[in-house]
């Protein structure tokens, strides 16, 4: 399942923050991870293979690693920031997902904390005045981040308690699997709709960074602002230009 460039058999991620997207509505979580990888120029350290993942192969998705090839599940790190970002580029095959999830959770178990990014259908937010954000955190995560999560001026998110996150893919199942193994885990999701979700992606990154800067270590210029880099794979996100021949 795991293929690392340094030929190691396990991931050395003690003290690491792991950012993991679920394949959700608008692919917003994956887009957020794309932004994170491109902006922080994270280094590809390997990939994951499993029958659950439809294999993909093609030119590099990012400007900073032009010789790489895309794969269905890629691992990126920043050793300095102790950050591991996982990127999925293919949907899952449902009948293999339980096995994949089990192996993935075991692989990431040594991490300091895991943050699952996701999205839910906008029409699932029943009260318009409610925050467009919701989260779910394990008890040990809440304990470790009581100061951040307890800051009412910062965190206006609603705590999710339901049994499903419609449009969120396997996010909740992943959350429960990490929680069972006592890995500090938080699931953060945004209510959104299908369309151009690049703005949602950048909002997810900014929201997470605002909650706790040491998750992502994204800072710039001392004014609290930072610039996100759009990866080159976002080119033609909605297909080709309409051909002139049509007119």
């Amino acid at each position, binding site marked *: 399942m795991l293929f690392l460039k340094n030929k190691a058999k396990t991931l050395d991620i003690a003290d690491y923050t792991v950012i993991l997207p679920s394949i959700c509505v608008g692919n917003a979580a994956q887009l957020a991870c794309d932004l994170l990888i491109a902006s922080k120029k994270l280094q590809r350290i390997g*990939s994951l293979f499993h029958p659950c993942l439809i*294999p993909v*192969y093609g030119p590099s998705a990012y400007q900073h690693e032009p010789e790489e*090839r895309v794969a269905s599940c890629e691992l990126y790190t920043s050793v300095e920031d102790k950050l591991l970002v996982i990127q999925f580029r293919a949907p899952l*095959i*449902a009948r293999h*997902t339980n096995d994949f999830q089990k192996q993935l959770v075991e692989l990431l178990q040594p991490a300091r904390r895991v943050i699952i990014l996701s999205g839910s259908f906008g029409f699932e937010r029943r009260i318009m005045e409610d925050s467009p954000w919701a989260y779910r955190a394990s008890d040990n995560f809440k304990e470790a981040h009581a100061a951040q999560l307890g800051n009412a001026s910062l965190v206006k998110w609603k705590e999710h308690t339901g049994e499903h996150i419609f449009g969120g893919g396997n996010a909740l199942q992943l959350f429960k699997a990490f929680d069972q193994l006592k890995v500090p885990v938080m699931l953060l999701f945004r209510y959104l709709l299908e369309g151009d979700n690049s703005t949602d992606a950048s909002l997810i990154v900014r929201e997470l960074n605002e909650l706790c800067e040491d998750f992502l270590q994204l800072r710039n210029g001392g004014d609290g602002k930072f610039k996100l880099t759009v990866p080159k794979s976002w080119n033609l996100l909605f297909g*080709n230009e309409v*051909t002139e*021949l049509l007119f």
Partner: protein
Amino acid sequence: MSCPGGFGELNIPSSRAFWDDCEEDEFENIKPAEKLKLQFDAEGDAQELPVESELFVLIEGPQISEFCNNALLTGLKHICGIPSKKSALHWNAAKGQLVASLEEDLSNSGEITELLLPYAQLAKKVLTITIKPKVEYKSEEIDRFSDDVSIVCRIGGNKSDRDVVKLEEPNFIAGVTAGIASWRHQLDLPISSYVIYTDKLPLDAVAAQAVLQLLQKLGVTCSERYVPSSKDSSYLYT
């Protein structure tokens, strides 16, 4: 045409997470999959040992089996069936070439990749060709290709090959060819990977020329030309 649901019914879009039409609330009740196996003609351990080849060719695409059977696999020894639609593995003993013809089946592609890895591991060279519909090709200069029946692209590989366009992002391939190419690339093993975007699927005599020319250029034994077998009906109105 009748209305597919009740009038006024809200059709909630299905989950993006699963390729095989599973919803978030069904996911926990999905039964684990039975393992797929290569379907060997004769029983016996010797049959099932992976063949060591000079060149392992994988060709994958929708409705590709008729083209492969007529233009590529004539006279080759059938080694085994691949558990996906009409896919199979054939052996050209004279040239030491192993040929996998793969009907596009993304749901099983991860598992089939795993089944073919032993063959890809033993092969000295591996060539993958993916056939895709032309409408899937993305380019800022798409008008340049509007009159072309086929667009042949390479993924990485030989820069001196000027006849073939280098595949640029955001294009990519998916399926067994992608799995094998990705695996060989990760292990730093030689891999030649091509994708042919064609405006006619299943391939007809004209669209097949680009595939045949590429195969010949890369030293794969195949027919000079391909003429699809004629059908009694177009099935257009049935």
